[in-house]
């Protein structure tokens, strides 16, 4: 083969080569049936990467000190060499925006294009969570709307006042999502149009809710005391936006903005293993494909393999580098394993996965990518072979027992337990305390009561008191949270009076 066939030689990159790689990688991706949004690739410097990093990946963000804190942290660690910057950031938008750092070598740029612009991109477009929870074509516009709105509020009401509300909303951000209900997609034009009337109408409803003029009770037996809300509510920010008695209309709008953003990020938090595994699997597959076609040379491949190996490295539990299961490693291993089960199923695979063993692998992977989140993906596809290869084991920490116990390892009797336990570990629902709005005292002191339903007897972290302060700032009256054990008894109560 003549050398001229290689797309690039050496590590310096040029715009033409990036263009060329994008086309070749796109061709291979299409060959494997990846369906993507159009790509927008932006070259940025390391400083700009730090900026992007600290705004949690939002290309346009409103101003808040917590992003500044994040930035200082990233900057300090980067300067001291504690951490390399991420090679890429990719935005779930249409077109899909991927940032490439100018310091990257040619190989890294190609890797990032394959990883982000085709891997993540197709995941954003295909996965059911992203399809239902986010609308890629509207997000950038919404972010701009949010930033302008908040900047406008700062002008009208002062930075401090806006900051207080944002602080409080951020504290509850993880509880600003609908976990069970389907959201309605957000669209900027509507958003803007409706926003003014919403302000007015909302305030009216709230006034109505809190009407103090006594109503005529229907004659007859005294009505049974009803709770409000009649069903517990999981979305705290939504409840506050709609019902908090003292918030100004602009404050409600800010609550809404934070809630919308929380919802936008919610799928990402639930699909880390899958998303990274999927993107890693595809950059690995695509670049190997290019190598087989002799479009990249050996030097490229060696550099690639070294980087790739670092990305999917899983230090063992007793290593100094161990912190937790590496989502890249787990996801990549599982994706490859699914392909293996399709292409070369063993007897074990046929027993465990009768429906996919021997099937067409791209179709099977595509189905897996579209219809699962981390928890269900692991529960469905984690194979005994992966458990053996990663030598996974389960440790039970029960505060009633004096010692920790190893409850399952990678053997016949342990596979199912490991699988279930690993799936559970990736279930946001059990990682975060289950806190819901339980009752509002409408007749008396207007206090708000939340209920924390215990999961495996786990208590709330003592930051709860701080969170309650934020909650009471939004609610305006006393708030309390009751911890309820499995038998429905209230075992602990925290309370915070309005200031």
């Amino acid at each position, binding site marked *: 083969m003549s050398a001229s066939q290689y797309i690039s030689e050496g590590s310096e990159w040029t715009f033409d080569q990036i263009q060329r790689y994008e086309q070749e990688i796109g061709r291979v991706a299409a060959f494997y049936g990846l369906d993507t949004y159009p790509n927008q690739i932006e070259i940025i410097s390391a400083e700009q990467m730090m900026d992007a990093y600290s705004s949690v990946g939002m290309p346009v963000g409103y101003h808040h000190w917590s992003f500044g*804190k994040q930035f200082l942290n990233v900057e300090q660690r980067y300067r001291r060499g504690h951490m390399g910057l991420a090679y890429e950031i990719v935005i779930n938008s249409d077109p899909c925006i991927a940032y490439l750092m100018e310091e990257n070598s040619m190989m890294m740029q190609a890797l990032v294009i394959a990883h982000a612009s085709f891997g993540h991109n197709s995941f954003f477009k295909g996965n059911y969570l992203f399809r239902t929870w986010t609308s890629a074509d509207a997000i950038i516009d919404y972010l701009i709307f949010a930033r302008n709105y908040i900047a406008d509020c700062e002008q009208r009401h002062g930075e401090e006042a806006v900051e207080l509300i944002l602080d409080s909303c951020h504290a509850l951000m993880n509880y600003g999502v609908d976990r069970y209900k389907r959201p309605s997609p957000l669209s900027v034009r509507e958003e803007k149009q409706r926003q003014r009337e919403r302000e007015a109408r909302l305030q009216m409803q709230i006034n109505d809710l809190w009407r103090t003029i006594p109503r005529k009770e229907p004659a007859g037996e005294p009505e049974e005391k009803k709770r409000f809300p009649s069903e517990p509510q999981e979305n705290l920010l939504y409840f506050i936006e709609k019902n908090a008695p003292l918030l100004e209309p602009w404050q409600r709008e800010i609550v809404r903005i934070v809630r919308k953003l929380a919802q936008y990020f919610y799928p990402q938090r639930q699909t880390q293993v899958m998303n990274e595994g999927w993107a890693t699997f595809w950059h690995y597959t695509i670049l190997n494909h290019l190598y087989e076609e002799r479009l990249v040379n050996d030097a490229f491949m060696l550099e690639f393999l070294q980087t790739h190996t670092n990305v999917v490295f899983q230090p063992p539990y007793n290593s100094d580098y161990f912190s937790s299961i590496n989502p890249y490693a787990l996801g990549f291993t599982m994706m490859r394993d699914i392909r293996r089960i399709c292409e070369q199923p063993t007897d074990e695979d046929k027993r465990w996965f009768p429906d996919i063993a021997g099937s067409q692998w791209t179709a099977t992977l595509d189905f897996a990518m579209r219809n699962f989140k981390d928890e269900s993906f692991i529960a469905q596809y984690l194979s005994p072979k992966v458990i053996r290869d990663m030598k996974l084991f389960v440790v039970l920490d029960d505060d009633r027992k004096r010692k920790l116990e190893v409850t399952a390892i990678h053997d016949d009797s342990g596979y199912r337990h490991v699988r279930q336990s690993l799936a559970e570990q990736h279930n946001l629902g059990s990682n975060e305390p289950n806190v819901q709005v339980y009752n509002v005292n409408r007749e008396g002191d207007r206090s708000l009561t939340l209920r924390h339903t215990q999961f495996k007897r786990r208590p709330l972290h003592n930051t709860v008191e701080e969170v309650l302060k934020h909650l009471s700032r939004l609610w305006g009256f006393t708030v309390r949270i009751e911890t309820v054990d499995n038998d429905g008894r209230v075992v602990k109560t925290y309370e915070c009076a309005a200031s």
Partner: protein
Amino acid sequence: MPLIIDRRLNGKNKSAVNRQRFIRRFKAQIKRAVSEAISERSITDIESGEKINIPARDITEPMFRHGAGGERETIYPGNDTYIAGDRIKRPPEGGVGKPGRATRDGEGMDNFVFTLTREEFMEFFFEDLALPDLVKRQLATTIDFKTIRAGYTREGIPANINVLRSLKGALARRIALRAAYAERVKDAEDELDRIDGEAEGSNPEKSAKVLVLEDRIRRYRKRIAAIPFIDTFDLRYNNRIRQPRPTARAVMFCIMDVSGSMDEERKDIAKRFFILLYLFLIRNYEQIEVVFIRHHTTAKEVDEDEFFHSRETGGTVVSSALELMHEIIHRRYPSAEWNIYAAQASDGDNWNDDSPLCRNLLIEKLMPLLQYFAYVEIKPDEHQSLWREYLHVKTHCRNFAMQRIDALTDIYPVFHKLFRKKAAA
């Protein structure tokens, strides 16, 4: 076709606003950290910015989280020894085989560390400090002028040409000069049209007339074309005039005792005090003059470099310095025009009969001229006559302040006390 955009030239400080907000929000904590940082390092390198360390718990953002306790199962990779049913002793803090590690340079996880720029650091450092009673404003002959715009002139340098104005003028001139010719051209053309319409057939008389008219039109057109597009006459220049601006003028006298009783440590403290003072002055007051006086038995006015670095020594006569100061004020800084400040550092050692002299000198001659006099006594073994005499001065003069410094770490607090911004009376 992908869209490839080069964003490298876009601004990189997108986070600057958020960074500012962070610093504003945690001002109190950062300030505490700044004053701690000061006591720990030599003041000469204040100017290099500072790594700031604030407790992480102060800046956490609270969330609902699970605390320790209850039942939890965790998955670990890389099993090499365990089988199901094994029991492991509970490690002291959380996970298996994962003791909380402190980082090498002693920054535990409990601290949030970041770097302030030099400007920000100095901002915090000298915040709330000011020279007291900076009042006298005098229109001096040479000092500050402000340049302001004042319309347009016909003369000036090319750099000041106002293009818009000049072209407006040119346009007006062209229209005016053209008008006369344009009218005549029009007349001639009308005439020509009339002749054309009058009769057909060739008529020598008529064609001669036509020729004349056409010639006339051509001539006028040429005239019009010859009007210059722009002329020196059109040029207008932005006019700027200088306006005198009243400024407060101030001078600071730094008086340092370098006698033999001032050992190295005391001199070091004194120098650091003055360096701090000097940084404060040059940072906050552009128009300030500083006079350095060092003295043992005799006093001498020196420049900055000599003040901080020279090493001569001898006995002590404090009044020599005060007299020199008085003389300099008399000669160069008439008190009607200048705000005059003085700071003196000494170990309090003085010839006994000189101290009452100093007191009289201060009360009678100097203090009426001064806005403020700050005296710091550095590590006195015990207060001597100078301190006692200065106490008298203090009771006499409202604008006299004295403090003592016992250790390096006192410098900043004392400095802060002496130059604290007073609430407006």
